[in-house]
């Protein structure tokens, strides 16, 4: 995808050195090559190409109906592409039935076999493979230990809590040591606390086992906190692929910017280009930001966007340093979230957000409702969105 190269490079250092997608010599493990899936007149996945590398924790992120689950099910073999190829480890998977594919999947509903114990559920994959009894016993014991369910081995699924079921499903999907583990909304059924814990556990597990995980989720926090890379999907296409910081800090399109986190978007036109400094004229005044000029032209309709937490909010009468975008408005609403306070400021009929971390214990709110305030955004915090 066409990220602005300078930002991508700058953000690359945030994560560890693991980045096979930047290495032209690296061979991808999973390749979707021009894959299309149609159901009658409806197109679920539209001419989509994507490469996932070994040991990646790859997230397919998007709202429901964007085709992310269909994409995963085509890799597992439950759906057949209408057009295009799905390649795993160099092998075209066309015509390979699900039971012969070296992928395993953890289902959203967990799909635990209700008539089997935890132990039997986990052993199922090995039994189908024809592994010797003694080895099955050992590997199941190891898997039970891995997910900390030794004590519950002889329980039936209906006797387990949601979190325990999730771990059984995980152990069952991992036991065959799949080349790729597919996780379909794996944490959707868990409550918030447990979900956060499990996120970290999953990442630790994936790193320890050295496996490739592909996760489907509609929850951006899940994708951001776990994934090495995220593919943001929109209506059967990929809107952007990138590491979590790139997706967040350098969204390629309005759709991505809007989908991931909170963002203020202001429509405008390119007014002036001066070297790497671009001025956009908007209804809220001119905004200047550093941007490579080759991708834009004067008069072009664009949008300027910035994140609420990169906005400073001060009283209108307070003096501020120049050299940054300043927007004056009235406080419309204040949302106190404990760790953050979000201010909604109304400016020329548009509502902008500013988020302030509550770094010290709050005794008195410095800014109140209906107060005149100024929002300050540094030039490098502004994003130019052309699409």
């Amino acid at each position, binding site marked *: 995808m066409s990220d602005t190269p300078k930002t991508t490079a700058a953000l690359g250092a945030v994560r560890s050195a693991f980045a096979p997608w930047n290495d032209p010599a690296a061979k991808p493990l999973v390749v979707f090559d021009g894959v299309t899936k149609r159901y009658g007149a409806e197109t679920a996945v539209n001419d989509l190409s994507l490469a996932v590398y070994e040991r990646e924790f790859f997230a397919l992120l998007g709202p429901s109906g964007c085709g992310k689950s269909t994409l995963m099910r085509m890799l*597992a*073999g*439950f759906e057949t592409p209408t057009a295009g190829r799905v390649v795993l480890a160099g092998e075209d998977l066309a015509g390979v*039935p*699900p*039971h*012969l*594919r070296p*992928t*395993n*999947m953890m*289902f*959203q*509903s967990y*799909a*635990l*076999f*209700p*008539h*089997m*114990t935890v132990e*039997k559920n986990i052993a*199922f*994959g090995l039994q*189908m*493979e024809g592994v010797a009894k003694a080895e099955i016993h050992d590997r199941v014991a190891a898997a039970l230990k891995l997910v900390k369910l030794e004590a519950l081995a002889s329980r*039936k699924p209906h006797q387990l809590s949601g979190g325990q079921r999730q771990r059984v499903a995980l152990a*069952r*999907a991992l036991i*065959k040591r799949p080349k790729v583990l597919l996780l379909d909304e794996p944490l959707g059924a868990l409550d918030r606390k447990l979900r956060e814990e499990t996120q970290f556990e999953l990442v630790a597990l994936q790193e320890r086992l050295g496996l490739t995980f592909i996760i489907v989720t509609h929850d951006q926090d899940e994708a951001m906190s776990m994934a090495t890379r995220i593919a943001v999907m929109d209506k059967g296409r990929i809107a952007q692929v990138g590491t979590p910081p790139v997706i967040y800090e350098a969204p390629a399109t309005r759709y991505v910017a809007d989908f991931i986190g909170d963002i203020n978007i202001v429509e405008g036109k390119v007014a002036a280009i001066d070297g790497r400094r671009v001025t956009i004229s908007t209804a809220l005044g001119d905004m200047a930001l550093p941007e490579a000029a080759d991708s834009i032209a004067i008069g072009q309709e664009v949008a300027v966007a910035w994140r609420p937490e990169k906005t400073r909010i001060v009283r209108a009468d307070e003096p501020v340093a120049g050299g940054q975008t300043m927007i004056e408005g009235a406080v419309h609403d204040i949302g106190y979230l404990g760790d953050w306070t979000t201010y909604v400021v109304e400016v020329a009929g548009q509502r902008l957000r500013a988020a302030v971390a509550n770094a010290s214990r709050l005794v008195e709110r410095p800014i109140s409702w209906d107060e005149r305030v100024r929002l300050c955004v540094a030039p490098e915090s502004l994003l130019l969105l052309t699409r």
Partner: protein
Amino acid sequence: MNPRSRFLDATALTLGFAFLYLPIVILIVYSFNASQLVTVWGGFSTRWYGAVWQNRQLLDAAWITVKVAAVSAAFATIVGTLAALALTRYLRFRGRTLFSGLVYAPIVMPEVITGLSLLLLFVSVGIDRGFWTVTVAHATFTCGFVAVVVQSRLITFDRSLEEAAADLGATPWQVFFRITLPIIAPAVIAGFLLAFTLSLDDLVIASFTTGPGSTTLPMRIYSQVRLGVTPEINAICTLMIAAVTVLVIGASLATKRGLPAT
């Protein structure tokens, strides 16, 4: 709850049960009648059960009935289960509406018509009527019931269980026998018991489709009753009621409770 409505409830319940079961209770009571006369109570006795045991004709008929019921129910269970699978799994196939109509038709079809049409079929094809014709006829009319029972279970079946099994390396056959069948087994068993019971009870279709040497118990009872009801008939009927009761209770237990682990 006030005592008045409780009284009303109890009365309604008693009357309802009386309406349903009084004739059967009378039949059972009189099967233990010592008297030769059906309607006159002559003291308690089990002599008619002994007499049944001595009656070769009745015993032969009972044995044939059980054999017909077992074989036809087995047939019906296989065909009915497959029909239910086809109807729930393949939501669109050519002639689906027609097929589902054909599966359910024998349930609503008057038995006389089913019996007569089967008779015409057997005659025109030139099959000698006997054990197998009754069995086939019974399988035909009971498989619809099996399909209905199994289908109700399949509708709530989570397909991702089968996908999970396939994903873990199970071939389609393994998926069916290790996952699908064990999970729907209670419904399949209930369907079998229902088919068995229906076959056991049937008089009309059996009359049309049986031949010499394969007289079923209901037919035998019916023909004897025409010569007058004997206490012996009451005894054999009581035995049949007992058998059917056991089967029906078994069927309902099977649907309620899942099967133990494989």
